[in-house]
């Protein structure tokens, strides 16, 4: 039942889907690099880069249906945009804007959970509701390697298995929790083997191979959708850069390590080579694709950065459905001191 050797792609996908995946992966990477630069130039706040993890996220995103739910961490930009979250929304989040947490109606993406692993019980609960309502929506709860140490991970895994809910617990094992390497995080060789402790299927997949990730997630999603219950998926991947723009990864690991991943296991190079071998891709097409990505990303950046200043009434607007007296008075005082914001 448990697959703890690295799962690699068994089949190949239709060319047009591979092309679509590839374009998404470069878009995600470009989005990410621009975000890092925006932070450097002081135009957005602290940002959590994902460069290196594009295949894990795009592969996951492609395996899901529109009605499915995501319960993301702060690093799920890639899968979130594939699942329908506007890029500009994500940029706004990293600019500390409330709109940055709001997915469009019909896009089932829960706001980013900052406290580690706390979103996993939510994912299990949402999947439970989906099951109770007889809907065919599947839920994906995201986490990293470090998050497996938190009690909430344990409780969520156990609830998922006991109630056999349609959830996939998707762990992107990028080798580090900020500065802490996996070997200091757990005494196991893999994360996937932890699933057995819950009587849950666990799969370890090459997170740099978008097709492998897609296959594993698709299988898990189909299983969940047809009443087969939860799956734990460990995607073995790597973040090339720092934990966030506030972090300096050279303090805790030698750059050779990340260079090696970049040179030998880059998910984009890898797919690009496949596409070229298939004879459906070349450098010219590639340049065009990056240019297109740049336009899309630029548009999102312009939108995010040109948005009106945040209306400070938002502090109160959604604190409660109906503001209790003390919040009403505090809002009044705020308006008196700092202006009405957008309030009528």
């Amino acid at each position, binding site marked *: 039942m448990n697959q703890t050797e690295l799962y690699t792609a068994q089949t190949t996908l239709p060319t047009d889907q591979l092309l679509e995946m590839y374009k998404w992966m470069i878009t995600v990477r470009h989005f990410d690099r621009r975000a890092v630069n925006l932070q450097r130039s002081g135009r957005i706040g602290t940002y959590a880069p994902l460069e290196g993890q594009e295949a894990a996220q795009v592969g996951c995103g492609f395996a899901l249906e529109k009605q499915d739910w995501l319960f993301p961490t702060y690093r799920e930009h890639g899968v979130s945009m594939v699942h329908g979250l506007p890029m500009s929304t994500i940029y706004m989040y990293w600019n500390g804007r409330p709109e940055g947490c709001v997915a469009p109606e019909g896009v089932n993406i829960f706001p980013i959970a900052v406290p580690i692993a706390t979103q996993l019980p939510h994912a299990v609960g949402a999947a439970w509701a989906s099951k109770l309502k007889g809907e065919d929506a599947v839920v994906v709860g995201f986490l990293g390697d470090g998050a497996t140490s938190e009690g909430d991970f344990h409780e969520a895994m156990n609830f998922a298995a006991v109630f056999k809910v349609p959830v996939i617990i998707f762990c992107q094992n990028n080798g580090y929790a900020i500065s802490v390497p996996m070997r200091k995080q757990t005494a196991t060789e893999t994360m996937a083997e932890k699933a057995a402790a819950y009587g849950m299927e666990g799969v370890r997949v090459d997170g740099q191979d978008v097709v492998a990730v897609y296959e594993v997630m698709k299988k898990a999603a189909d299983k969940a959708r047809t009443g087969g219950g939860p799956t734990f998926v460990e995607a073995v991947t790597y973040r090339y850069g720092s934990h966030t723009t506030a972090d300096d990864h050279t303090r805790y690991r030698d750059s050779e390590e990340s260079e090696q991943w970049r040179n030998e296991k880059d998910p984009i190079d890898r797919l690009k080579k496949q596409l070229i071998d298939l004879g459906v891709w070349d450098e010219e097409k590639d340049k065009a694709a990056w240019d297109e990505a740049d336009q899309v990303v630029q548009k999102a950046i312009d939108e995010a950065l040109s948005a009106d200043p945040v209306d400070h009434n938002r502090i109160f*607007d959604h604190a409660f459905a109906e503001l209790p007296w003390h919040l009403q008075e505090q809002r009044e005082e705020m308006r008196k001191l700092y202006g009405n914001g957008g309030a009528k």
Partner: protein
Amino acid sequence: MAKLNIIQAITDGLRVALKEDERVLLLGEDIGVNGGVFRATEGLQAEFGEQRVVDTPLAEAGIVGASVGLAVNGMLPIPEIQFFGFIYPAIEQIVCHVSRVRMRSQGRFTCPMVIRAPYGGGIRAPELHGDSPEAFFVHQPGLKVVCPSNPYDAKGLLLAALQDPDPVIFMEPMRIYRAFRDEVPEEHYTVPIGKANVVKEGKDISLFAYGTMLRVSLEAAAMAKEQGWDVEVVDLRTLSPLDRETIVASVQKTGRAIVVHEAPKTAGLGAEITALINDEALLYLEAPVGRVGGYDAPQPLFSLEDIYAPDAKRILHGIEKVMNF
């Protein structure tokens, strides 16, 4: 009308909710076939099935965390925490998520739920079965906190909490679960959240209490009567948001006040109510607001619990101090 005690009134309220709203789902430890350790869910699993009255694994963060996902995806969960003193492992879920989902998602998602928990000491239970950490939840924005002191309010507040679009912490006074019975209507009715109840009018001093301490306070008020002091006793019923109007009006009338709770005195509800009176009625005060709470020592084992929690004698002593100021 049936005469029910508090635990029966809660069971009745849960039954009404399960009947009326198919989104309602009860989950917790031992609430199924066992009917809960206090029998609050007695018979409900048999009546509504294992899908709607669910025994969970032993994990409070899991119970509350799963409830968040259930609520966000359209259910109306009523998680039971077996004792309020066992809610601590779920505090991260409550403080980081239950209370913030609406705000974080700017209203895109909401998280209505009623978290039930019996609180307070007095039943000779082992350690930590008698904690009263309500101040934590009153301090945390995004939550409401209610606490009935009688069967009628228990059912009415429970059904009001379930109608509330925001999450509510529902504290149950376990010591008086079976202490007495009231007329409780069979049908659906609500007791409004945010409204205190003047249970005994008086002109000399206003006493604010809730839950278990209400009846003890009435005892103290009767003893005070003998000393010629006419105590107005106010049942707060909702701890967050507080019913400012009723509290302030009472103090403006009497000019004196005292707050009673089982929780440790320092930084408890008594402090907030004293500060509220200070804000709104300082000039009416003829004496400092008195605070009678549990001692600021960790709650002891049960051989000492009666002396730890306020009793009528200690409350009377508090009243004396305020009256003789």
